[in-house]
Each structure stands twice: as C-alpha cells, then as structure tokens.
C-alpha cells in the first residue's frame, strides 16, 4: 500500500529526504495541506508557521543541493508544544499570562531539532502551564481527540498527541510532569516517551514542577521515538540537572530481541479500580511478551496508593514557587488598572491565570506555608523517597514494569472538568514514574468497543531507555494488529 506523505513516519521521511527521493519542501507543503484539511476539526495547532516551515524546508533542500550531509531528522515536520521557548512566534503556554510573549532565545531541544534539519510547522495546544489531563484548561482553544471529536485528547500535551495521530505532523515535542506525554499518547493512540529525569535538557522549557518536568517526543512509531530521543538528549551547560552520560544509540537498541527480558507486573496496579476493558487490552499485550519467551514476574509497589497525594503536594509546591515569577514586570500580562505594585501583582495574576493554575498556586502556597510545611511538603518528600525505594526493589526482580497508561480510555468534554480531584486520579499510573525519576513509555495496545485507544505503559530503570525502547518496539512489531487511522483521517 502506498502511503500519503503525511502518514509516513519520521524515519521514512528522513530516509526519503536524505536519499533525495523527495524534497523537504514537498514534505512541508504536504503537511501544511493536511493541516488545512483536518485541523479545523481537531484544533491541535495554536500557531501555524507556514512561511517559517517552507523557509526551513528550503534551507534543508539547499543543504542537500550543496552535497552536505543532512541531519538525523532531515525534513521531518514537527509541532512544538506551546511551552517550548522559540525565537520565532509566541511562547504562550496556552495562557493569557503569556499570550504575547516572544522568547528572546530558543530552548535547547528546539535548537537540537533545528540542527538535525527538522522543519517546524508551528505550535500545538496544551493545558495552561501544562496543568491538566485533558487540554480543557487551554486559554486558546479546545483540542479534540481524532478518534472521537466529542472526547478529550488527554493532557497536558493534548495538542501534540492529536496532531501526531491525525497525521498533521510526524513528530511533536511534549513535556511530562506527571504523565503529560504518556496519558495523551494513550488517549489518542500514539507513542509517547518520558525519558529519565536528567536525560534531556529542560533549558527553555517553561517550568511547572522543576524536580518532575522532562521533555520527550510523541510519535506514531517507537522507532521515531528512539530516533528523536537520540537527537534531543545529552548534557547541556544551561541545565545543571542534565546528566553527563555516554553518547546514546537508541535506534541501535531496537534489535527485536527480547531474550532474557523480565517483565514485572505490579499487583497494586491491576485492581478493581482499573476499567475491565483497559485491563483486558493490557493483559493481551503482556501475553505478547509471555508468548515470545519473556519472563513475567509479580512485583509489588506497596506505596502506590500514596503517589497521587505526594505528587499533588510536590507539584503544586514547586508550581507556586515557579509561577511567582509572573509578576507583570519583565514579561507577561500586566493589568491596566494597577496603580500600585501590590495591585500590579494581584490584578495581573488573578486576571491572567486560569482557574486550575490558580487552584494549584493556592494549594502549593498552602502546603509550603508556615505551620503546614512539615505536615505536607516534608512528609511528601519522605514518601517520595519510599516510592523510589519500591521501584528499586522491583527492578531487582525485573527489567521493565508493565501497566496500563491510563485507568480509562478518553472521556467526553466536561465530564471531569468540574471535579479536580477526579481529574487528578486519572494520572494514577503515570505519576509514580515522575516521582521516582524513571523513564516511561506509552504504546497503543488496541481499541475499546467504543473505538477509543488503550495504552500499554512500560517503565524502565533510570537511564535504561535502551531496554525500555527495545521492549516497546518488540511489542509494537509483534502485537498482531495495526492501530489503523482515526476516523478524522
């Protein structure tokens, strides 16, 4: 079957552009046409950089014409989440606070993609300041799930997942603080990986919770995730928390060989709280490993029940500190009625931050406030240590841990937005991975009866993305079905 250019994977596009079979300009034009055709329904893109995309593509073609070697992502069309700083266009974080913000510098990951000859199509939607699990908290627009336009795409990287799934771009860069790459990837039926904390530079990623945030790709194939991760990872002098590690070869790790692999199933994750249909899909996925010689082992993560409470203490505490910088002085919104400095702070923040952002600032301020710090924040940091210990112990018995990515498939707009706690609970399987700083990936593992994607999450040891990607790739190649294309296509 011949595939239209917009359904080709990043690796296929790269190979075609490098070999000269197709030009980067053709690829860019094809994707811009695709966006014109479907984005009116999906609403993934918040900024379409038509001229910039064609300019970048022309530069790649000119480089090829000069006989220069093209980069690892030559001509690959990319959608960037609204929170990556770019000199071109705006960096709004889907917030009124930054609606006119033009970054004076590029994020390190943006620079690395550009150096690898990728082409930027524009920016995609997200929950305001990456706070949310449905992208309903965007101040810009409502992004839909390409599998069912009445349903949410997940969040916070909902625009990234929807754009990739609808064939609007081969690759999107997202960020993951508590599941913001993996959960939307699961709900939209694409691949999303959150690397180990420290694997990818956070410089130029607008900060939400600094001890949890990590950058990662959303793609349609595991191979594309490996390809992108090879490009964006590495030590960065601009991010002191980026780790010094040997050069990676994640593409080379995709050997299709899982001999000796031990897959751990945490008994705390397969309880009645899990939707039966999701459970069945994930168990079918685990059968693929079992049938191919992997050892399936029972593991225990006893502190799992406490993860959400720990997460929402730590992330709100860090968010309240990080977002204090939006004071209306150096950048961002300043309320026109402010006559005093105090008013400038209060009026600007209250008017420009949406309800979820204000709720998290309030919670974070509360748990850090005098008299409550020990009871909440310090306690949460202690339990975080115990959660990490649980994983260390589990990884003595297995090489990867398998679980659902989300307890349910996608849900309709408005069905959880009035109940923040219920929305928080939808992050139950992804949150611990951030708390324990581990790498995690979501791979599509089928469709529910309602025609919505389910996702298998694999969790790896710190900095063992190679094992994680090899295991994920093996499943994807041997699951015995194709996810097909969403109805919007």
């Amino acid at each position, binding site marked *: 079957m011949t595939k239209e250019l917009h359904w080709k994977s990043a690796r296929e596009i790269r190979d075609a552009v490098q070999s000269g079979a197709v030009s980067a300009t053709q690829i860019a034009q094809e994707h811009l046409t695709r966006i014109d055709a479907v984005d009116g329904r999906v609403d993934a893109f918040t900024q379409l950089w038509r001229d910039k995309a064609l300019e970048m593509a022309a530069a790649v073609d000119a480089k090829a014409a000069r006989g220069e070697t093209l980069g690892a992502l030559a001509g690959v069309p990319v959608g960037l989440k609204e929170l990556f700083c770019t000199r071109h266009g705006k960096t709004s974080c889907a917030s009124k606070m930054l609606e*006119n913000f033009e970054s*004076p*510098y590029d994020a390190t990951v943006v620079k690395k993609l550009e150096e690898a000859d990728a082409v930027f199509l524009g920016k995609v939607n997200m929950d305001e300041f990456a706070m949310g699990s449905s992208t309903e908290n965007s101040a810009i627009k409502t992004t839909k799930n390409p599998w069912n336009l009445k349903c949410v795409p997940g969040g916070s990287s909902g625009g990234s997942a929807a754009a990739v799934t609808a064939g609007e771009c081969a690759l999107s860069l997202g960020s993951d603080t508590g599941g913001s790459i993996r959960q939307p990837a699961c709900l939209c039926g694409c691949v999303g990986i959150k690397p180990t*904390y*420290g694997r990818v530079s956070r410089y130029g990623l607008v900060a939400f919770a600094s*001890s*949890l945030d990590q950058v990662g790709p959303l793609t349609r194939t595991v191979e594309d995730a490996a390809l992108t991760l090879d490009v964006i990872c590495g030590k960065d*002098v601009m991010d*002191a*928390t980026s780790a010094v590690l040997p050069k990676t070869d994640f593409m080379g790790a995709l050997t299709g060989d899982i001999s000796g692999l031990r897959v751990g199933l945490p008994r705390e994750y397969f309880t009645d709280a899990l939707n039966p249909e999701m459970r069945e899909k994930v168990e079918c996925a685990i059968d693929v490993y079992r049938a191919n010689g992997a050892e399936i082992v029972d593991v225990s993560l006893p502190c799992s*029940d*406490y993860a959400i*409470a*720990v997460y*929402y*203490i730590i992330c709100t505490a860090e968010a*309240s500190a990080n977002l*204090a910088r939006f004071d*209306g*002085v*150096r*950048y*961002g*919104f*300043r309320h026109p009625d*402010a*006559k*005093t*400095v*105090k*008013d*400038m702070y*209060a*009026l600007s*923040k*209250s008017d420009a*931050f949406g*309800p979820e952002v*204000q*709720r998290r*600032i*309030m*919670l974070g*301020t*509360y*748990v850090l*406030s005098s008299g409550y710090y020990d009871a*909440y924040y*310090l*306690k*949460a*940091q*202690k*339990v*975080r*240590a*115990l959660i990490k210990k649980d994983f260390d112990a589990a990884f003595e018995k297995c090489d990867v841990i398998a679980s659902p990515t989300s307890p349910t498939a996608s849900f309709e707009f408005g069905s959880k937005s009035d109940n*923040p*706690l219920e929305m928080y609970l939808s992050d139950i399987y992804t949150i611990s991975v951030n708390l324990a*700083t581990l790498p995690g990936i979501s791979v599509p593992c089928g469709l529910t009866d309602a025609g919505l994607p389910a996702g298998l999450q694999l969790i790896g040891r710190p900095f063992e993305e190679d094992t994680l990607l090899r295991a994920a790739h093996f499943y994807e190649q041997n699951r015995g079905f194709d996810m097909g294309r969403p109805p919007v296509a």
Partner: protein
Amino acid sequence: MSSFSFSFFIDITSIHWFLMPVFGQKPPVYVMLCALRIPLSERYIMSKITEKDVSYVAALAQLQLDDAARTRLVKEMGDILSYMDTLNALDTEGVEPMMHALEMTNVFREDEVGTPLSHEEALKNAPLDDGAYFLVPKILDGGGKS
C-alpha cells in the same frame, strides 16, 4: 443570643433527626459543639480549611479572589487536602526526605564571559519600560509628591 437560639432550634429539629439513624443517639461531637456555641455553618461543614484560610493563602500567593472563587476553593481545597491526609497512614519515621531528583555533587565550570541578552532583547517583552529600565508603579510613598 437570639441567633444562638435560632441555630439551636434548627439543630434539634432538622440536623439532629437527620443524624439519628446514623448515630442512634446524639453524637458526642455534636453535643460538644453545641456547648461551645460554634455557629451552625462551621459545625456541620467540617472542611479542612475555612474561608479565612483561603483568604490568608490568597494574600500570600498575591491572588485576588472574588466571593464565588473563594467559596469554590474552600470546598475544592478541602477535598484535595483531605485526600492528601491519606499520607498520615504511612509511617515515615527515620526516612530521609528526597530533596533532589538526581544524586549530584557540585557542578563546576570555567568562569568565562558569555554573551548576555542585549538591552533591546531583554526589554522586548516588558509591559512598560523606558529603553533602559523596566518601569513599575511607584513602590514607596515619597513624601506626598508624585
């Protein structure tokens, strides 16, 4: 005194009978709260936090809340903080808190002069500036002249 008798009246006629099937008799906390003359609203809606707490935290966070937002936050924060109290079930005696995401020692680099942002670039996003400085509303009251 009249408001107290009024609330007491409501207590025995509605709430108490409502609670009867649950407790079978007057719950001791109820008796105690009646004795302390705590207003009805605060006696039965035992939220984790009060409107006063929310206003105090909003002031710390430099947020200005309207009445609707304050009422909403009392409930939402109360629910979420109650949920967070599940952590108290876990014994963390002697556990070292995880203060950092990565085990790291000091990171050193050469002290070299770099290229900072130009004035123009640094001020590009400022809501108000004079080309050299960010401008803000007057902070100190400088003796009445402005």
